[in-house]
């Protein structure tokens, strides 16, 4: 697996080069959100807003009204928790092209409950006019800026930073799910960093004779995937959703809503953060503790298909765990 460092930092500078309308706003987390290279390269298009997110979001709305496309950079929690009213009234209501780049989704930070965004998809997708995207690897981190840019309204992105694997060799596309494999037994749908966990189980599932259709979702809103629904309908054992987010209001809920509307009477298993806050600990520790890792997926598959899967730790595919203290990160969060 190819591992890349500070993908967003480099890509943002390159991508924004010939886009004078693109501005970056930051709330005291500039290098933590990999916007430092942009700041140093295009100082006239970078605005330091201090630890004052409510004003930052309203300010971004004003800039957007003047024809600019502000890319707001901070940790996800500080966007949707601290400035929700401002997002709703100063950005989403007028459908302005403010792009909110939210870092540290779920377990990707050991920063504890204050820093871990676990209900952001739920909250942001309930806002009218809002588009919600989530990236799962280095390729999507690179593509998401342009995907968001082309959407003529507000966009919220669950973003990744630091050291990242490159999983996909084709670009991310708006409203398009990635179908990673086909199988009649069950459907597995994942988003963000959970797709890596799903991929770790590929060999084991194959060996156990379980054929699964596997999907990776990067557009969480709008959520319209007819082929996915068809596969769920035709599956033998139903669907498992897997997300680095609360099971309430995220990917699992999106799938549930669509299944109910389509009248698909199949079992749905939601893997995610089970209506709980997280705490400060490493990513692998939290993924294990909260049951959103590859073994948790295999346990759910066992439940769904009604048979035991035999495997050893060695059978699990390669997983990339970034070091806690990495030179690709500004701090140990």
């Amino acid at each position, binding site marked *: 697996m190819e591992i890349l460092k500070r993908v967003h930092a480099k890509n943002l500078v390159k991508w924004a080069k010939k886009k004078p309308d693109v501005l970056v706003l930051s709330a005291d987390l500039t290098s933590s959100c990999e916007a430092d290279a942009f700041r140093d390269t295009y100082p006239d298009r970078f*605005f*330091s*807003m*201090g630890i*004052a997110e*409510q*004003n*930052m*979001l*309203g*300010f*971004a*709305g*004003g*800039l*957007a*009204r*003047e*024809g*600019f496309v502000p890319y707001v950079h901070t940790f996800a929690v500080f966007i949707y928790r601290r400035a929700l*009213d*401002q997002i709703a*009234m*100063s950005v989403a*209501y*007028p*459908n302005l092209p403010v792009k909110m780049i939210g870092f540290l989704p779920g377990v990707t930070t050991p920063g504890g409950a204050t820093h871990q965004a676990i209900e952001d998809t739920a909250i942001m997708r309930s806002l*009218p*006019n809002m588009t919600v995207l989530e990236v799962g690897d280095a390729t999507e981190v690179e593509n998401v800026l342009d995907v968001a840019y082309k959407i*003529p*309204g507000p966009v919220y992105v669950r973003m990744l930073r630091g050291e990242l694997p490159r999983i996909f060799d084709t670009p991310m596309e708006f409203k398009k799910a990635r179908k990673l494999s086909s199988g009649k037994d069950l459907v597995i749908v994942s988003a963000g960093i959970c797709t890596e966990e799903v991929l770790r189980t590929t060999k084991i599932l194959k060996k156990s004779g379980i054929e699964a259709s596997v999907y990776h979702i990067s557009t969480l809103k709008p959520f319209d995937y007819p082929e996915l629904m068809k596969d769920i309908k035709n599956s033998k054992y139903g669907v498992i959703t897997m997300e680095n987010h609360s099971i309430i209001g995220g990917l699992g809920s999106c799938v549930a809503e669509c299944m109910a509307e389509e009248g698909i009477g199949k079992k749905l298993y939601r893997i995610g953060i089970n209506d709980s806050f997280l705490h400060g600990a490493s990513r692998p520790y939290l993924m294990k503790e909260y049951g959103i890792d590859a073994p948790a997926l295999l346990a759910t598959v066992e439940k769904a298909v009604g048979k035991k899967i035999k495997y050893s730790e060695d059978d699990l595919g390669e997983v990339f765990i970034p070091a806690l203290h990495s030179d690709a990160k500004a701090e140990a969060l």
Partner: protein
Amino acid sequence: MYKFDKKWEKEVLSIADGIRMRVFRFTVEQNGGYLSQACSASEIFAAMYHGLMKLPKIKTPLMPDPWQGVPGPGNPIHTGIKFNSDGKEGYDRFIMSPAQYALVVYATLIETGRMDEAGMDAYNKDGGSVEMIGAEHSPGMEVTTGSLGQGISQAAGIAMGMKLKGKKGKVFTFLSDGECQSGEFWEALQASSFHHLDNMILIVDRNGCQCDGLMKPVMNIEPFDERFRSFGCECVRIKGHKPLLLAEALNTPHRGKPLAVILDTSPYHGLSFLKERAPKFHYIRFTDPKQREAYRKIYDKMVKEG
């Protein structure tokens, strides 16, 4: 430089009386309304629309648009900017932060010949844009405010956008003192000073009232002008209801800084009978039909006496 004389002030005061009476009439007709806002701010709005803001002339008073739906895919933003600068370059922008003052703005637009009086038929009516608490689609409004404290941030973003594009013209933001209790307001002031937004003009109606009553016992914001200054803003504090003082205050040099003018106003200026309602002035509600009738009589008497 703002150069205005006694004659202009007289005109402004006459427009202000017209605004106040119009809002008074609507309050009686609608069985309640934001009347004290007209008492405290009529002179401010009259002065701003009668020369302090640089706005293009409107030959024939405009009619408000019908309700055109919320902005969204396939439905672009509709704002009330056509009653102000209409987005034309070289003119000032107007951000009305406390949307609860909407009726005062509508009355101002009528009194200054920018809106057709018949447009008020749509006031507070389903399917219209002349809403009780206005939003960006309402006449004279350019952004959605009313969730208090949000106007100034949007204004600052617009001011920054105008600077980046080299656009002339100022961004006038009307604020009421109550909303200045919010954190976002101070965040915005801090950012506007930090980013040297000297094209921002903040006009603050310091009427000392908020929904719960007088501000002092609810949440004190004094020393208000000193707080403005300590946040890096140029600030002038003047007596309210005196248009020439406001015009003069706008001449205060504020290079590299936003300029704030605080006007100490009265929530019952021009309608002294409202004083008995102290300390509650936020929304004038009639407790019984008799009281409403009494107000109607006062209104008729005032009209008769001119």
